[in-house]
């Protein structure tokens, strides 16, 4: 049953990825000019029509669009995403350089956000009407209205410029040895911004579902039978965490969205910064590759979340509803 269900998820993920690749290919295909014009660029006047046609043939641009897509996808599956129009280096190399940096940021953010929000949400949800409960509600609305880059600018103003405690940009100290401590030191500000802008809504979500569970019959019955408050908490958490994990899954793309802005602000050389750069210089091969790889990473994350759901929700394991 699980195998069948997981198989279905894998197939769905594959379909999603095919659509993503389709989108990124045709988006770039719709762009004005084609790779050939980008190639001969300023020499357009001096070339004869025959020469232009030869270049187009060499690029395969005389073939039907679907055929071009097929070729591109076939190559992409083998890890060949073409060459950067500006740097001339293979796109896959550029992406693989950047990917770990983004993952470091996002995985740490995700870790801190889930730990903090589960703790806060549980505390607040169990004590309805308390100061923490109301405070968290206000914080979650306020934090979801703060643009992360503005928060980043404020932090830079306070912690980097005024107090001089933390670096405002880069990933390593230029003179340093580039060790782990140095990396973490540079990560403090971007990480804090990402965590603050996400933790509120997550905690609020858990808080709400803890409240719903807290009012349900099984909890009341357990209380009436004198089950210890500790055990009740664990019961509530186990049930409330299931929709929460699902919500984390739905929100994962927005972590990548948030990292684009934060990476650019703090000059963190990850995928997000690369994306913005390649839009500015219109480096389409890199842009296509970056979209594709973000799609792949998100689909993998969603798959991990699915597996986590099976571990946490016995109903799924026993082949109940999906």
């Amino acid at each position, binding site marked *: 049953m699980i195998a069948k269900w997981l198989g279905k998820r894998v197939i*769905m993920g594959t*379909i*999603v*990825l095919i*659509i*993503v690749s389709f*989108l*990124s290919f045709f*988006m*770039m295909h*719709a*762009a*004005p000019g084609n790779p050939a014009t980008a190639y001969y660029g300023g020499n357009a006047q001096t070339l004869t029509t025959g020469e232009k046609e030869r270049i187009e043939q060499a690029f395969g641009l005389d073939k039907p669009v679907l055929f071009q897509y097929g070729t591109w996808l076939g190559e992409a599956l083998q890890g060949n995403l073409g060459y950067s129009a500006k740097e001339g280096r293979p796109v896959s190399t550029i992406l693989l350089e950047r990917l770990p940096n983004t993952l470091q940021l996002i995985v740490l953010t995700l870790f801190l956000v889930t730990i903090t929000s589960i703790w806060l949400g549980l505390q607040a949800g169990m004590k309805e009407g308390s100061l923490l409960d109301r405070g968290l509600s206000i914080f979650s*609305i*306020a934090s*979801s*209205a*703060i*643009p992360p*880059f*503005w928060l980043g*600018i*404020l932090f*830079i*103003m306070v912690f980097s*410029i005024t107090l001089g405690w933390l670096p405002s940009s880069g990933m390593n100290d230029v003179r340093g040895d580039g060790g782990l401590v140095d990396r973490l030191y540079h990560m403090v500000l971007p990480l804090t911004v990402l965590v603050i802008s996400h933790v509120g809504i997550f905690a609020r979500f858990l808080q709400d579902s803890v409240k719903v569970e807290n*009012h349900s019959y099984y909890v009341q019955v357990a209380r009436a039978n004198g089950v210890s408050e500790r055990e009740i908490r664990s019961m509530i958490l186990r049930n409330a965490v299931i929709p929460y994990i699902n919500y984390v899954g*739905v929100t994962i*793309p*927005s972590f*990548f*969205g948030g990292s*684009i*802005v934060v990476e*650019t*602000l703090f000059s963190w050389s990850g995928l997000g910064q690369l*994306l*913005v750069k*390649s*839009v*500015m210089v*219109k480096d*389409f091969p890199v*842009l296509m590759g*970056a*979209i594709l790889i*973000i*799609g792949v990473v*998100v*689909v993998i994350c*969603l798959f991990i979340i699915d597996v986590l759901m099976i571990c946490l929700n016995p109903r799924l394991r026993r082949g109940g509803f999906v």
Partner: protein
Amino acid sequence: MRTQRKYPLFWIVLLALIFTTTIFSSLLAPFEPNAMDMNQIYKAPNATHLLGTDQLGRDVLSRLLVGGKVTLFIAIISVVLSSIIGIIYGGISGYFGGAIDAVMMRILEAFLTIPSLVIVLALQAIMQGSVWRMAMIMGVTGWFVTARIVRSEFIRLKELEFVQMAKMFRTPLWKILFGHLLRNCIPAIFVVTIFNFAGAIFTEVSLSFLGIGVPPATPSWGTMLYTAQNDLLVGAWWMGLFPGLFIFVTILCVQVIGGTFKQGGRSHI
């Protein structure tokens, strides 16, 4: 335990105030927003320039008021567009169901997998340009959640007795779609549109901040923060503080208003 619905009067008034000041910004602005004054470069907030001046001696307050017009205009146009697309897409998917629904939902899932900011960025790369074009791009990429909500509402409503009855009496399809189904979705659509509006402000501001939104010469809240990155180095804190504060308060108003309506209705986003 539903609390009685209270209208968030304070926030509605505040939002209305923001809207009116931006609409009449050209009359209200104390200075011409693009007028440079080389004697007044990087002046901290003072009695003449309430929020200080920028690197060209332009009045920050005037630029903020005018800049709000660009941001809010883009947000409104894009939300209208995205609602229309979302209603049509979700409506078709929800009403017809079956294979059509399955295909349309897989496509929607693919869209939701790519962070929306990435899609907008890619489209900006292809056709960067005017304020209108940017509103279009954001509208075309902002309908996913609306479509989902409309779809689930349609699926819920179409099984209800009054719709079944209408079908039995051979009511024309368009009447069922618009008169019976769509009309009952309006509260849910309203709520999701409010949140979309906040999201659209967010997106516009983020794009302009990244330097790929509206042309940097146009004053908008995002572009002001984009230039503020350099201003911080010379200690011009007011350049970084005030535009963000405007954005924050506006989005906060919209979120709080949306939140109240969401609690009142049964829709869950």
